[in-house]
């Protein structure tokens, strides 16, 4: 909130996700392909295999166009995007790790120059020298991962850095090694997937089958190792993060599901089209495999990004640029006084459309948009003003994992008035489940995180209706009062007691 907030019209997270996934995908595949190229080149020399050499030469061309151009520019692109969307967290990262990036840049220069020379010098340099340059390429590309991995994992698990702000405590943080190992295997698997694609274009049948099998083995072995290293990665996560993946954060939970699906699909499809029936490996199939791997990548990156919510750097700074320890002060003095980027008009006029909107922009539009994905209106449709007000006071308890609302009660009221413009008509609920989803499901789940069943199963339907539902906010301050009316309470009570019954029968 130190910085202006870009009101770009779509969910900012989506923009980050697209640029980051594409970049990380291409850059990983550039690392793995480095190793694939040198190992295969050596094999080609040993077997004196001319076809294989011609294949590698072509392989390295597309590789240059991908990694040197697309990888490099999207890498800068990530910087542009995070600087625009999360400037405060980016500034923290740059201050903490500027020389880490500088070191990565050194590796990057070597990588780019070696990659270009490797491509331009096929058959013109001595074989041994050409191989050495290939190795220089691979090692420097992998070393950039060694560096950047420290910074990426730091954001999720800053470890000892939070106490001492020491570069190396943050760099070698608790998830550093599992992440490095899993990324390395994934990059090797991707190199094989890319080879499957270029193999599929080979004219000679025998040769195509041979490369396909060779690349297939490369993919399967590395994917399995990647899977194992994910398990290790999982074990070192702190509890709060595990909880997030197991239901505390809805989006994370569904992305974890996608990771499994893409992983299994990728292994099965690759096994079929490369080892069992290699003749199937033609362009459309190879592209399908490529897309599956992109899906796997997108899902794993999305899980990692969403686990970090609501922080930009875990336990250090929220995504919206507020430091957690500033919250009490902001609550006392008001966010209008505190934020740099609210207009004079918003401070003096105090209307929903300026004051409410500008506070919402300052605190919430790093994640929410006003239309499309993450559109705030979608979540609050049909809510009454009191419920909205009460919910805004408890944002940090919700499963979406948001930072708490920071500001005075009056400021919160301005935001509520502004958001009331999006709620529309008060809602009529047809079933108890709808009431549950709208009024309880944003904090509770059935059977998992903050399970609703054990806390309601001891009560009868009428107790629930008469004593529990109207008293929630007194039982636990984290809960807003129930404001949807008698009829909805009745439906909810019925639904909850049936829920406990069915659950009871299962046991």
């Amino acid at each position, binding site marked *: 909130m*130190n910085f202006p907030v870009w009101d770009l019209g779509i969910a900012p997270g989506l923009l980050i996700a697209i640029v980051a996934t594409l970049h990380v995908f291409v850059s990983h595949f550039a690392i793995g392909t480095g190793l694939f190229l040198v190992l295969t080149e050596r094999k080609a020399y040993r077997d004196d295999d001319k076809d294989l050499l011609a294949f590698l030469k072509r392989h390295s061309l597309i590789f240059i166009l991908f990694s040197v151009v697309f990888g490099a520019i999207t890498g800068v692109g990530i910087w*542009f995007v995070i600087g625009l969307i999360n400037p405060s967290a*980016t500034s923290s990262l740059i201050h903490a790790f*500027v020389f880490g990036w500088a070191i990565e840049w050194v590796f990057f220069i070597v990588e780019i120059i070696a990659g270009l020379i490797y491509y331009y010098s096929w058959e013109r340099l001595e074989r041994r020298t050409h191989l050495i340059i290939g190795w220089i390429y691979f090692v420097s590309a992998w070393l950039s991962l060694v560096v950047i991995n420290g910074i990426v994992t730091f954001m999720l698990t800053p470890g000892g850095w939070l106490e001492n702000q020491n570069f190396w405590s943050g760099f070698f943080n608790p998830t550093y090694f599992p992440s490095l190992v899993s990324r390395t295997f994934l990059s090797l698997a991707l190199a094989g997937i890319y080879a499957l694609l270029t193999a599929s274009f080979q004219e000679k049948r025998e040769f195509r089958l041979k490369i396909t099998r060779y690349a297939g083995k490369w993919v399967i072995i590395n994917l399995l190792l990647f899977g194992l290293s994910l398990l290790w990665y999982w074990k070192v996560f702190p509890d709060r993060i595990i909880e997030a993946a197991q239901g505390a954060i809805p989006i994370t939970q569904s992305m974890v599901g996608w990771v499994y699906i893409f992983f299994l699909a990728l292994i099965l499809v690759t096994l079929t089209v490369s080892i069992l029936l290699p003749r199937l490996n033609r362009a459309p199939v190879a592209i399908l495999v490529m897309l599956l791997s992109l899906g796997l990548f997108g899902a794993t990156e999305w899980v990692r990004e969403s686990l970090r919510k609501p922080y930009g750097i875990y336990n250090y700074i929220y995504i919206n640029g507020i430091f957690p320890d500033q919250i009490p002060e902001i609550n006392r003095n008001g966010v209008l006084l505190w934020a740099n980027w609210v207009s004079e008009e918003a401070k003096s006029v105090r209307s929903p459309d300026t004051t409410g909107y500008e506070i919402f922009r300052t605190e919430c539009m790093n994640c929410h948009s006003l239309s499309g994905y993450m559109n705030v209106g979608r979540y609050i449709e049909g809510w009454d003003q009191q419920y909205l007000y009460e919910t805004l006071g408890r944002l940090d308890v919700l499963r979406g994992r948001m930072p708490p609302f920071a500001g005075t009660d009056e400021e919160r009221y301005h935001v509520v008035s502004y958001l009331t413009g999006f709620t529309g008509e008060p809602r009529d609920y047809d079933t108890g489940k709808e009431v549950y989803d709208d009024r309880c499901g944003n904090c509770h789940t059935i059977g998992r995180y903050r399970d609703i069943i054990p806390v309601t199963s001891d009560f009868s339907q009428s107790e629930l209706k008469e004593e529990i539902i109207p008293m929630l906010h007194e039982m636990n301050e984290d809960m807003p009062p129930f404001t949807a009316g008698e009829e909805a309470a009745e439906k909810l009570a019925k639904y909850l007691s049936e829920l406990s019954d069915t659950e009871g029968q299962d046991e």
Partner: protein
Amino acid sequence: MNSIIHYIPDLDPIPLPAPVWLLKFLLLLGFVLHLIPMNIMLGGLILTGISYYRKSDFHTGLVRRMSKMIPVVVALTITMGIAPLLFLQVLYGQYFYSSSIILAFPWLSVIILVMAAYYLVYIHSFRYKKLSHSSKTAIGWTAAILFAIVGFIYSNEMTLMLTPEKWGAKYFPDPSGLTLNLGEPTLFFRYLHFLVGALAVAAFFIACVGLSDKREKWFSSKAIKYGAGWFTRFTLVQYLVGILWLIALPADKMMLFMGKDIAGTVLLFLGIILSLGAIMMLNKASQSESPKTLVFSSGIALLATLIFMAIMRDILRNAYIAPHTAMENIPSFFQASTIIPFIVLLLVALGIIYWMMRKFLTMKAKT
């Protein structure tokens, strides 16, 4: 608190991991290393574009050579651009992020424009023999224009970040990031100064291409003449543009280079003298039988001019920022455990690059 200072974000609470002078040195070093390939790339594309309309053997030869080299020069421009962007952010993040958010859409479009232009120069290079004359002309010019637009967006960003008093009026009426800094009186001449400079440096580069071409003697001497001629013309135009830029600056900033700031004044003076020297030496080289030493000395003078101009640019930036942030008071420490590895690795990397380049430049010709 007055309403101008009001919008400038607070200093990041994490201290700088190196003294300001060191970060500034690295910023300037990186900037010059980025500036050189950037000029060759942009100016080179424009000069190549013009050569398309001249059908002599020399121009055809020039286009062919440039088209092979440009993709590599683009790679260097981007790679070398990363370091200054990094140090700029750590030193001036408060200013830099704020103004880039205000200009968000054009600023982000840089990525797409660069990517498009980059692929175009690759197509131009790899399909050189297959493409028709007119499609090559079109591709070359499109790439040139895209890069020129990127430069223009950078000029917008680099000027807006220095004028925080304008931020509020630009941002609050429309926070969607769809704006440029066109109201800035210095914008036009500043940009023109970069554009003309790029043309001059690219002309110089063509003279160097001539110098290093040992196979075709006629091309070599023509290229040096061509380079010298255009380098002279563009540099003379550059003096005019430079003066206009200086005049467009607010009076107190202009005076920095006219006596108020000793370093600024001396650097401007030296820059003019050295660039005149570079012009004279290069012209002499174009008439000489053995031009090597002259071109080389001229290149040193040009390099020094570029360095001086980069430092002047920094002096100007400081003058804009000084009333709001005292750079010398920003808390910092010396993070030896990362700075030393950085320097050591950089030296090792330079050694490896040197080895690779030597192998590359002495490898056998294509069979």
